[in-house]
């Protein structure tokens, strides 16, 4: 009787049950929780900040060139054209974060698709797809990005597409490995035995079970994408001035490194903060989602 009641109670609380478990496990991971807080604040600042600051990111004020941080209203100082760095940093954040999230979305969807098809069908379909993945991986991604960006108009959209082209392989490999083991599990066979089609099994039975590793890989992809965008913008092939991005802010700071170090330090710290926060979130998610599969 007691057990029956206990079971009934468990049934009532079940909606929030594993979400709670996963969430609390995630929040117990201190670095991950801090990373999440930083990303949330950064995103919020990039969305709202530019509206609250007294300066536009493109307004040139030659009288206020090279103001160090905390002069008047220029909290983070100004650049060689007297533009407010705080405003530029937040507008650049919009672009950098947007590129990061978009790359994550595109490469996760595409990588998952390739991985699931390769893992489910195996045989020659799987071999051909995974050899394509290997071929893409064989190029150092930075050169691939640079070569590609030399051929196209460097708009934020094209930059996103180019970076996504170099980021999907990792996810494809992770998903393929996951699907290879999941497809041998009894529930997959049970689904086949109850008359499910290949498409149904792939996307309704297998992919939901691989969600943990996919989410982790996706988070790490954001970090990677932000870094890549900063890198190619720094080298001058990415987002083009006057549109600010964290990478091209660093680029324009190079020649004034000795006189106005804040020009490099401010975007540098922001990139480091964003990238390591995403990496910590990925680590935390890996731990939180992994132990779910160990549950009885």
């Amino acid at each position, binding site marked *: 009787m007691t057990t*029956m009641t206990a079971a*009934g109670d*468990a*049934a009532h609380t*079940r909606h929030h049950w*594993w979400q709670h478990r996963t969430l609390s496990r995630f929040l117990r991971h201190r670095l991950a929780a801090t990373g999440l807080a930083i990303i949330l604040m950064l995103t919020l600042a990039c969305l709202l900040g530019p509206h609250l600051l007294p300066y536009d990111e493109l307004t040139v004020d030659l009288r206020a060139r090279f103001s160090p941080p905390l002069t008047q209203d220029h909290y983070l100082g100004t650049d060689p054209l007297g533009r407010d760095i705080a405003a530029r940093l937040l507008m650049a954040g919009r672009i950098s974060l947007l590129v990061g999230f978009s790359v994550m979305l595109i490469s996760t969807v595409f990588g998952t698709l390739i991985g699931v098809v390769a893992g489910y069908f*195996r*045989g020659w379909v799987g071999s051909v797809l995974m050899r394509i993945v290997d071929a893409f991986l064989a190029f150092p991604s930075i050169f691939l990005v640079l070569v590609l960006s030399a051929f196209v108009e460097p708009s934020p959209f094209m930059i996103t597409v180019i970076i996504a082209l170099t980021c999907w392989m990792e996810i494809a490999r992770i998903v393929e490995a996951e699907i290879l083991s999941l497809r041998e*599990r*009894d*529930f997959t*066979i*049970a*689904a*086949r*035995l*109850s*008359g*499910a*089609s290949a498409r*149904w099994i792939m996307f*309704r*039975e297998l992919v*939901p*079970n691989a*969600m943990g590793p996919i989410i982790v890989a996706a988070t790490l992809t954001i970090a990677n994408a932000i870094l890549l965008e900063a890198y190619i913008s720094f080298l001058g092939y990415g987002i083009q001035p006057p549109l600010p991005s964290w990478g091209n802010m660093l680029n324009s700071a190079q020649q004034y490194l000795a006189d106005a170090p804040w020009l490099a330090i401010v975007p540098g710290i922001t990139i480091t903060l964003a990238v390591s926060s995403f990496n910590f979130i990925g680590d935390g998610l890996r731990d939180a989602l992994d132990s779910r599969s160990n*549950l*009885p």
Partner: protein
Amino acid sequence: MTLSHPPALAVRDLCVTFQRNGCETRVIHDIDFEIAAGETLALVGESGSGKSVTSMALMRLLGRQSRAAVTGQVALHAATEREPIDLLQIDDARMRQLRGRRIAMIFQEPLTALNPVHRVGDQIAEVVRFHSGSPRRQARAQALALLEQVGIPEPSSRLDSYPHELSGGMRQRVVIAMALAMEPDVLIADEPTTALDVTVQAQILTLLKTLQRDTGMAMLFITHDFGVVSEVADRVAVMYAGRIVEEGDVEAVLARPLMPYTAGLLASVPRLERAGLPGERLATIAGRVPDPASLPAGCSFQPRCTFAVPGTCDSAVPALASLKAGRRVRCTRAHELIPAEELSPCPQTS
């Protein structure tokens, strides 16, 4: 058992051959059996005797990728069809329509047979939706009715449970509900109670028998447990090294096994009344199931058989001899081990 109707499932000369590294290994040799509607045939044998491969071959789960060649006939006579369908001849799309609808299967381990990320109600409703294409709401109502039918308490609250929130017995009931959603004509149960404890095992067996009585499905029950056999089966077929070595009505086989292997299996069932007697040890069959790649010459059980005669038993594979009352045995010395009147077919007994 006299068959007035054609059997729901008739298997003829089923052979399964695996190809690996250029070698061919035959693991199933000329299996044939029939199951009538409403009847249960138990397929018994040690691990490695080919029970599960047989069931996978019937369901066409041994595809190109497992490099298995399946030959023979598997005639499924659905109640709704006039002609039997040979499951080994139809194309994949047709097979997909039949799976779950006319022939279903349940597994040993109920936890792994359910998808851990979907609610059980959705999993049952999905099966209904594959086959009948009924709208979501209606499929869900049907799932509820099925949960009720398989005896799950508070079925409406269980619809939204995840598999890990249910006990082993409940999960197996859910698996059964999924298998029976479309009222199949044939149910293959591959050790469905092995992973459960004994009291739950008895409940599940009773449930399966009740459901069989209600739906009239034929059941192929795969197990290694003679206790389970005596409880559910009408007939039993004993497999050894990929061959059927003995078949007959359950009472007859259990009371008087004709094949030394069956006798050995029955002797190695632990018995409560003999436990604890001084000097009493559990009987075993010496040796191991042979490797299908290198079967011994002649009768495959001969190296382990205490009755084996050199020169006879190791020269040729004995034929599966038909006796009275649907009884069959594959042993050259069967006539020595049993009274003569039991061996010869007796037309006067009905």
